[in-house]
């Protein structure tokens, strides 16, 4: 097993850094329901980390713990080596963790450009007054932020819908806009909640390419939840498998694929 501070190089030449986020013995309960039970795993810098599992396994809850939406009753989250106190989601976002949602959460009436600009909100520090007259600091900031946003738009190839209201877009493009907004925040960790859900083969291929390119180009650490096994096995460096709130597997796609507990969870097993 690799030391948490060590780096290694993957077969395709990417460098995976030391552990950037570590979940230790997380337990999350909603009243009597145990959503997550004593789960530990880590995320390394620069890797693509997948969380998989059947419906109701607690994957989204896990993502919500990482993003600060839920505070676990037990266990600790370590971020960049430091223990993270219970935080509000906006505080987590300020630390450089961005996310997309399983059910798209965009501002439908706003244009794509404005939606993506909201991803830059934590880089906007100008006073309300400066912003209202759009002078000095506010102008500089907006120009700088717009530049970053335009690069993201270019990267995700959504130039043609820049000025289109999000409400008029088809589902696949909305997903991409949401990804753009998350990416505009220049996150150190990007959480993707089912980025491929409801997409056709072509859209899935596009999305996979964007995820790989993002990781390659910006070195973004990505944690994703996904149902499509083919996608997960192709994209990710390491996979955590959950079932009924418990971790039943953790390792490279190959290790996970041959793990009996995982096979049972997915294919079902006879209960005596």
């Amino acid at each position, binding site marked *: 097993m690799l030391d948490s501070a060590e780096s290694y190089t993957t077969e395709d030449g990417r460098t995976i850094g030391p552990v950037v986020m570590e979940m230790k013995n997380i337990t999350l309960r909603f009243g009597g329901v145990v959503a997550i039970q004593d789960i530990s795993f880590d995320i390394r810098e620069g890797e693509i980390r997948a969380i998989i599992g059947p419906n109701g396994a607690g994957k989204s809850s896990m993502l919500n713990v990482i993003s600060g939406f839920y505070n676990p009753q037990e266990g600790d989250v370590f971020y960049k080596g430091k223990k993270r106190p219970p935080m509000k989601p906006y505080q987590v976002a300020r630390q450089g963790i961005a996310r997309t949602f399983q059910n798209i959460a965009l501002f439908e009436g706003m244009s794509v*450009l404005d939606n993506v600009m909201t991803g830059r909100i934590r880089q906007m520090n100008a006073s309300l007054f400066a912003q209202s007259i759009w002078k000095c600091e506010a102008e500089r900031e907006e120009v700088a932020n717009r530049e970053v946003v335009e690069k993201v738009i270019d990267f995700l190839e959504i130039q043609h819908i820049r000025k289109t209201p999000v409400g008029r877009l088809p589902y696949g493009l909305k997903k991409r806009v949401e990804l753009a907004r998350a990416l505009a925040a220049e996150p150190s960790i990007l959480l993707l909640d089912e980025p491929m859900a409801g997409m056709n083969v072509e859209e899935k291929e596009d999305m996979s390419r964007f995820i790989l390119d993002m990781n*390659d180009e910006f070195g973004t650490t990505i944690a994703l939840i996904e149902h499509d096994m083919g996608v997960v096995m192709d994209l990710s460096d390491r996979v955590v498998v959950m079932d009924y709130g418990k971790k039943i597997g953790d390792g490279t796609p190959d290790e996970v694929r041959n793990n009996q507990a995982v096979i049972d969870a997915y294919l079902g097993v006879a209960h005596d």
Partner: protein
Amino acid sequence: MNNRTGQSAVASIPALLHRNASRFANRPAYREKEFGIWQSWTWFEAEREIEALALGLIDMGVNAGDFVSVVGRNRPYFYWAIAAVQSVGAVPVTLYHDSATQEMAYVMDHCGARVAIVEDQEQVDKMIDIQEDLHQFEHMIYIDPRGLRKYDHTKLHQYSDVQDKGREMRDTHLSELEARRGKLDYDSICVMLYTSGTTGKPKGVVLSNRNIIETSKSSAEFDNLRHDEEVLAYLPMAWVGDFIFSIGQAYWCGFCVNCPESPDTMQTDLCEIGPTYYFAPPRVFETQLTSVMIRMEDAGRLKKWLFDHYMAHARKVGGDILDGKPVGAMDRLKYGLGNLLVYGPLKNTLGLSRVRVGYTAGEAIGPEIFSFYRSLGINLKQLYGQTEASVFITLQPDGGVRSDTVGVPAPGVEIRIADDGEVFYRSPGTFEYYYKNEESTKSTKDAEGWVATGDAGFFDDETGQLRIIDRAKDVGKMADGALFAPKYVENKLKFFPNILEAVVFGNGRKECTAFINIDLTAVGNWAERNNIGYASYQELAGHPQVLETVRAHVETVNESLATDPMLGGCQIYRFLVLHKELDADDGEMTRTRKVRRGVISDKFGDLVTALYDGSDEIFTKTEVTYEDGRKGSISATLKVIDAKVQPVETRQVAAE
């Protein structure tokens, strides 16, 4: 300099560049929308960029006479690449960036390119796939580094790095570059372009500086093009038209070439730039008109009434006003009002407000579509040309525009019609030869320089303009001896917005039959408005009501054919609507979207048989190629439908 006749002081593209860099130093030469903003380069800056790249190419070891392929969509970097390649004495070969790997392999192998300049990972991957079979291929230069960081960079270079290297080594290589540039004259090769090849393998058409510069000069004078024109470069760079408009004429006149942000943003970019000189194939005008009509269908009642009312008026007088014919004062006043309320805003939406000279060519354009644009006051004209002629063979002059002719001979072009109707021409733009294909050169261009166009046509008595009927080799005879001109009929069918493509059969047979492709945008919109559900192209194409509509269209065409004594025999007796769209990826069309008759009748042989053996429906299975090169197949049961034909009264006379 030892001038041959007609040689001007500037005898090459790099020489023109140098002239422009001093004459128009601070005027924009290139613009590209990138990151949401129009970035621009002046002629002075453009020359600097091109020089840096040229020096970098010399440093890489590119020799005079080498072939360098350029594969990408319209971007300033590629236009610079072309000029840079010419500057070092090498020959640029532009390739269609959307061609499949095998097509690229053929061209790359045929010209023996040593260097390829490509856009991004997609193209790099294609080249890597084929490079094992290419013995002379050495270096590859790419523009967009995305996704390429992990690739082996021994033979792979980033465009900007090559330029940096060139700037660094300027002192070492500059004298060499100047010497090579100085050697270029009217006879040196300017560019090699591969024809799309409606039949057989593509042929490399070699065009000299004389061809390009003389043609650009005379055509620019014909339309009085100036240095302050704006063009939008959006048509494939591998196509001769783009080479003439965006390089030849742009360098000759010194006007600015604007490159769109991405293929999807074309319409927005068109509106923002508002070109003054604009070229588009009929298909683009058709698509634009269809989208306008679809939007008007959904518009409010007042708007719709305004639109219909003023468009009717425009149809009545718009064309005449444009042609400078006498029109009554009241009609002019009403047209002016219409311009304020309808035409002006519409032209602005289409991005055609400032168009002073507009051309369409490549295919026949529907008369309604053509007159729609002209009635709005857009000076849209037709031209006739081909790669071998450096585009221009005939052009329509201002004030002499008709939808069924292609114009008068371009300046310097001689035309003669052979006995069998085939059109021949001779001009300063006539190509030098087909690369490594002496046989074809001989059969196309005779010793006196006359070139066979392969098209059949005649001069219209009334206007003195050329009229093209069809490809000469496609023109045939029906079993009873009547003239068979498939393209003429296909064009008539394609003028209906619902019909995207048509292929007519009937050479040597008693009756004509046709394959039809529906237009998914137009028919899809109709289906939506009529609450007709469909899951796929195939399902919509087989819908009984769609078939009924298509039958009505076919019968209308038959009626119109019946009035033409020459072509009355080409009426369509039976047809079917194809289950898939004809596609260049499947080899059914060329990259410039012309149907390949031979391929289609072989591939769908079972369907052709069904059209003639009287069966009502036929089950068929077709192999399709996806964009990434994978193969799949689709199967369907197609209905064969009979259409009513009209008696041709004068047919006896014509046949005798």
